[in-house]
């Protein structure tokens, strides 16, 4: 009975893992195949040759490198903006009682539920007047709007879990409120803030609708690939899918222990 249970467990584990990992494995194989191999049929399930041809093509196509850079820049600006807006807000939510706190919290979550098309389309004309259209800052601004609700909720949760007593102790021993925040709360919540920022990075890196609509020349990687979808060969698409996924997967590895804490509040 015990052996049977153990066996069933291993089988279940394998099936679930395969379901998740196999597609990731297959896109990796496809990306490291030669152009001919991509169109060959039937394929070998295990790759015979290892080729950087597709990857070379992908990076040498016009706009790929710059869109890669653009994606990083947009994500970086988004991180900074999210940091500067979400930290004071989360501090207010977790350390003060004020009128309308709970309703504001719910409202912020609701803003995340607004469809991106509803935000992105009307923003174009607003951006044109501010000359933010086709501008990386403009994309970062809307990515910030998308990332803020969750990052504030996540960060409030992190702050709340750190006992107020620590800051009070600092204040009693002569620190100002700001110093208590900088010397106590900030270092104590650093891992959580890092996790939140990684989540924000992934949000920005992955976002495609707004980035496509708000840019023409200065495309992010997602927007670049979406834009060329009709006109590009399979190996370009595969490499695109691969390079869109890799940074995000690497980053999520670092916050794996934080995922539960971040979503526990729902």
């Amino acid at each position: 009975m015990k052996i049977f249970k153990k066996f069933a467990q291993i089988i279940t584990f394998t099936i679930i893992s395969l379901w998740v990992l196999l597609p990731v494995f297959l896109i990796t194989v496809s990306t490291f195949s030669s152009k001919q191999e991509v169109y060959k049929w039937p394929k070998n399930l295990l790759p015979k040759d290892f080729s950087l041809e597709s990857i070379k093509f992908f990076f040498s196509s016009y706009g790929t490198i710059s869109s890669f850079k653009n994606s990083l820049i947009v994500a970086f600006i988004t991180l900074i903006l999210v940091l500067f807006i979400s930290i004071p807000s989360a501090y207010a939510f977790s350390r003060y009682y004020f009128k309308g706190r709970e309703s504001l919290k719910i409202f912020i979550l609701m803003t995340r539920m607004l469809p991106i098309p509803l935000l992105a389309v009307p923003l174009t004309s607003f951006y044109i007047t501010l000359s933010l259209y086709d501008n990386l800052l403009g994309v970062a601004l809307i990515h910030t709007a998308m990332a803020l609700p969750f990052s504030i909720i996540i960060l409030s949760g992190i702050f709340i879990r750190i006992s107020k007593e620590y800051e009070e102790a600092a204040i009693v021993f002569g620190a100002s409120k700001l110093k208590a925040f900088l010397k106590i709360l900030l270092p104590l919540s650093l891992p959580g803030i890092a996790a939140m920022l990684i989540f924000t990075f992934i949000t920005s890196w992955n976002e495609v609708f707004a980035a496509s609509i708000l840019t023409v020349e200065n495309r992010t990687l997602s927007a670049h690939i979406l834009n060329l979808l009709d006109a590009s060969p399979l190996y370009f698409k595969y490499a695109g899918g691969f390079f869109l996924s890799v940074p995000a997967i690497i980053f999520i590895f670092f916050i794996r222990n934080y995922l539960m804490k971040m979503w526990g509040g729902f």
Partner: protein
Amino acid sequence: MKLNEKYFPYVLLLPLLLYILLFFFNPFFNALKLAFFDENNKFTLIYFRELLRDPRFFSAIKYTLMFAVTIVPLQLITAFLIALFINRNFKGSKTLLFICSIPLAISDLAAGLIFLSIFTEHGFLNSFFYFLGLIKKPVYFLSYENIPLLFTSILIAEHWRATAIVLIILIAGLQMIEKDYIDAANVFGANFFKRIFYIIIPLLKPSIQSALIIRTLFAFQMFAVVIALAGDMIPVLSGETYFWYYIYRNSHIASCYAVVIIILSLLLTAIYLKFLTYKEPVYENI
């Protein structure tokens, strides 16, 4: 001094409030304006009339709803089963949880492209079927000639990508259920299925509800995964918004689509909240 202290939280929230004003209220009302007002700022329904004349509009609604009602329950069931499995806390359950959360990092566009390598006629699925001897020639999964197959392919891709978030929410919920309840049910002789139906599911209802709402709302915004696998062969609301803005450069119609998305989203959320709001259940006869 005292006044200062009282308004301090609002000062901290100021950047956020400003942001909400500029990047939520501003586009929201502008969308309504674009959808209902013409160039001379006069109220009009011509854009909606035009929308209704577009045959793709109705198929977009049809397919969007079809995706929502198929994917969401499917994800919920898959995630629930995996969550129950992971929650057994065996050696390796943490690893499995991490593996299962990988798709959380993958965008819908990337997921579409990943599954393209599986479903395309030169893809892995066809090769696999060939090796099993099931087929001689490639099957065209992604063709307009077989829309149900195309729909299913997209369904599989989106199900793979977005189940992770439901899983995380459900596991977080499961972990909050005190073991005492389950132990108690055990002591009083409830078997595995009774434990699930009478203890776990009722206690998990708040998590199920939030997962359901989040997933449904995002299902209405399905976009890149559809375009990557089906191009414009299967219209969905977000995709149409994109096309109307991006190709036809008509922000009025695009806004109309966006308004339809939000109306449908609000409608479904309201329905969920009405039927699923967590009340203390009254058990009269078990």
